[in-house]
């Protein structure tokens, strides 16, 4: 079920990127970024206030900041890149970055993931993906 959920997330993600890009065209990338995350602050702030009041609080740690910072940078860079090269090419290049990053994480057991041996076919696959990107770009 989790894998199907991951695929479905991708469908929604493309739509989200499109709408954020449209908002950035009629305002600015920076305003669209603040609006996008402001909606989340409002929604989860209210939800936390309603449902999370009675739960014991966990001490705050500095690394809780990182995902939000990275998320904000993702939106800004996303909007900028999509305007330059279009959705499909951006997704393909982003995919290359994702695959290399995820193979590295799995190979070395980073970020709490268990170590997975990387089969040579996976690196060949990355090479073939790069060839596909070359075809798209040139």
């Amino acid at each position: 079920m989790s894998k199907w959920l991951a695929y479905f997330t991708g469908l929604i993600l493309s739509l989200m990127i499109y709408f954020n890009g449209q908002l950035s065209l009629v305002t600015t990338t920076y305003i669209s970024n603040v609006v996008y995350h402001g909606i989340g602050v409002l929604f989860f702030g209210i939800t936390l206030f309603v449902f999370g009041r009675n739960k014991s609080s966990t001490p705050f740690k500095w690394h809780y900041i990182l995902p939000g910072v990275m998320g904000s940078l993702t939106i800004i860079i996303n909007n900028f890149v999509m305007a330059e090269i279009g959705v499909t090419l951006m997704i393909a290049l982003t995919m290359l970055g994702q695959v290399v990053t995820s193979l590295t994480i799995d190979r070395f057991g980073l970020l709490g993931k268990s170590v997975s041996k990387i089969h040579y076919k996976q690196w060949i696959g990355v090479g073939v993906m790069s060839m596909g990107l070359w075809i798209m770009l040139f």
Partner: protein
Amino acid sequence: MVLIYFLAIFIGFLVTVTPIMNGRNSLVLGTIKTSFYHYFFASVTGMILMILLSPMVTGIEFDDISLKYFMGGILGLSIIVMMNYYTVRIKAIHIAILPFLGQMTMGFFLDYLLFGNLDLKTILGMVVVLLGLFIQSSGKN
């Protein structure tokens, strides 16, 4: 243009690491608090960047902004909840591949419907990218 391509690849790093970190945080804090922290610090970062890099905010006709433009934020709410759920249950490589397949499906549709783009070179390149994905996912772990 090469810088743009590198930025796109860097986005791949960000979108892989961010949900994994959120998933780990959600195991400790719960998904609601994790999501709140994510959006709160993202908003703060966005406002700081807006002040530093885009101080002139003029000429924007807010009456022209239809409600549909806020769909991105609304869709994002469901995405982060789904990601907080599945990122701790599947491998990092599946976190990268499966959403990509969904993005590619919708990306092709959007590119054709909205921009009329049906470039055969792009389609051929994407087929080769898919082949590469199939090869790398068929390797034994």
